[in-house]
């Protein structure tokens, strides 16, 4: 049987871990856990904690407008890895918007940077055509700001990284911080691994 060794070799090669690329559930438990960066499941977990805490505090539900009008302020990435903080902020926004708890204003933005410039331009033209362009702009009830910090340490060959997510909500009527929370995600090990 000259084919037998070939078949055995192929079978062994397959079993030995020739792993082809495959899709993973972004909410699932088979995602890579990294020691050198914030993973997508970390952003989701932090956003989940923040939204639950914010809703539970009941601050948004007390706003004069319903749903509350939210302005997005500065959310800083102070970690040693590069990422867009929208990986966190957008999840929070989506959850609040879909839950009917808040809407985000484009009228007042940090540095006057409009997320959707065409939408803003259309709004200004509509106001001009309607003759309402001289009316005061609608100001947000709250502004959302935050920081993502990190702490890295090691003991022997074991590495540990902590990512600290901090968020605050300021009531624009009083300029007081009316809600704050912090979520720390700690990962420890020798190397990145698949699944958790």
């Amino acid at each position: 049987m000259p084919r037998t060794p070939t078949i055995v070799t192929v079978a062994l090669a397959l079993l030995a871990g020739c792993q082809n690329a495959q899709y993973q559930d972004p909410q699932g438990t088979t995602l890579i856990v990294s020691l050198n960066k914030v993973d997508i499941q970390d952003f989701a977990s932090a956003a989940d904690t923040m939204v639950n805490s914010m809703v539970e505090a009941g601050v948004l539900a007390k706003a004069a407008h319903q749903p509350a009008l939210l302005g997005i302020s500065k959310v800083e990435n102070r970690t040693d890895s590069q990422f867009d903080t929208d990986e966190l902020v957008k999840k929070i926004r989506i959850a609040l918007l879909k839950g009917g708890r808040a809407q985000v204003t484009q009228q007042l933005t940090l540095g006057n940077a409009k997320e959707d410039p065409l939408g803003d331009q259309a709004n200004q033209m509509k106001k001009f055509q309607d003759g309402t362009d001289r009316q005061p702009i609608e100001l947000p009830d709250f502004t959302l700001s935050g920081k993502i910090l990190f702490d890295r340490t090691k003991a022997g060959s074991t590495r540990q990284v902590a990512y600290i997510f901090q968020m605050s909500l300021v009531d624009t009527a009083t300029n007081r911080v009316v809600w704050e929370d912090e979520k720390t995600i700690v990962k420890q090990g020798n190397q990145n691994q698949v699944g958790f």
Partner: protein
Amino acid sequence: MTSRVLASHALVALVLTTGCNTTNTYTSNGNGGYTSVVTNGWLAYKATVDNVREGKLDDGTMKVQIDVRSDQLNPQRFNYLFEWYDAQGMKIDSATATWQNRFIKPQETITLSAVAPTRTCSRWVLKLSDEKQPFTPNN
């Protein structure tokens, strides 16, 4: 021959009881209680639901706290996910829903909390899983 049959049956039984990396599911019954579907005995031994408390926020949003107990004598980890459903039984997706990993000390009881993503949610489902279970093909 008989011993071989017995051995194979024992092996199948072992795989069924300890080897299946399945999810245990706890579902609210809408009256403050819950029903459970436990298919993973190993997981239930280190994370089993003891008690459920349901409540509502001022704006009517549902909130739930679930006590989970470990009967193990060693520290363990498990994963959990909350899903939410409205009165019609339709699933309400949340932008932030994700499986989360929890550490539990020996014989400890911890509390998992969740707030419904919308005011229309009236039922919750808690799923528990264990990716690092021994004797599974994943390891």
